[in-house]
């Protein structure tokens, strides 16, 4: 699965995307729990979960959304465009 990061989450993690094997994971939350164990940068990126937004296959989703058939999942802070 392609996992994407944007804005300060990308900066904290130190990369904009990566491939993750999501075998055995059901929801976006499972993926977050796994990522948080991947180092200090990930821990910081997912420190404040109320500020984390999720998109599954480029559609807004929640942490409880299933990720089974997804090709791409993105994590980012609240948007500030316009």
């Amino acid at each position, binding site marked *: 699965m392609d996992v994407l990061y*944007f804005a300060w989450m990308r900066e904290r993690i130190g990369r904009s995307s990566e491939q993750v094997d999501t075998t055995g994971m059901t929801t976006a939350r499972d993926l977050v729990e796994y990522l948080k164990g991947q180092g200090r940068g990930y821990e910081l990126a997912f420190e404040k979960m109320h500020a984390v937004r999720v998109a599954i296959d480029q559609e*807004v989703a929640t942490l409880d959304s299933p990720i089974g058939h997804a090709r791409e999942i993105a994590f980012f*802070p609240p*948007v500030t*465009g*316009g």
Partner: protein
Amino acid sequence: MFSVTVQSADFDVAAETKALTIANTQIGAVASFIGLVRGSEDSVRSMELEHYPGMTERALEAILAQAQTRWPLDAARIVHRFGRLEPGEQIVLVLTASRHREAALEACAFIMDYLKTQAPFWKKEDGPEGARWVDARESDESATDRWSD
């Protein structure tokens, strides 16, 4: 008639308005909104706009589709820039065209409100104390809420 573009280049509101309306003389009203980079030497010296290619266009198209279900629009367009921008530069353009002014003006406000909370853009401002990511505004969330009924 309904289109979105995400680009680093600047845009020309007069040319965009003309392109939107030229084929349809039943359009009587065009509303527009332009967002500009605010700043100065003491505050924001420049800004970097990041976005999520692919999702951004889908999100903006979804907002236009929602606006069409609410107002009788003849045409609408969103142009949003990304990359580095200086104070005074144009960030975003929303154009709505309709037979009547109420529809055009309300749809323009609606699209901006939704864009602020739904479109995956993130601003990083560079100022005298370095660069910082802009915080999302609580008031933008409530501005979106006012359209739910």
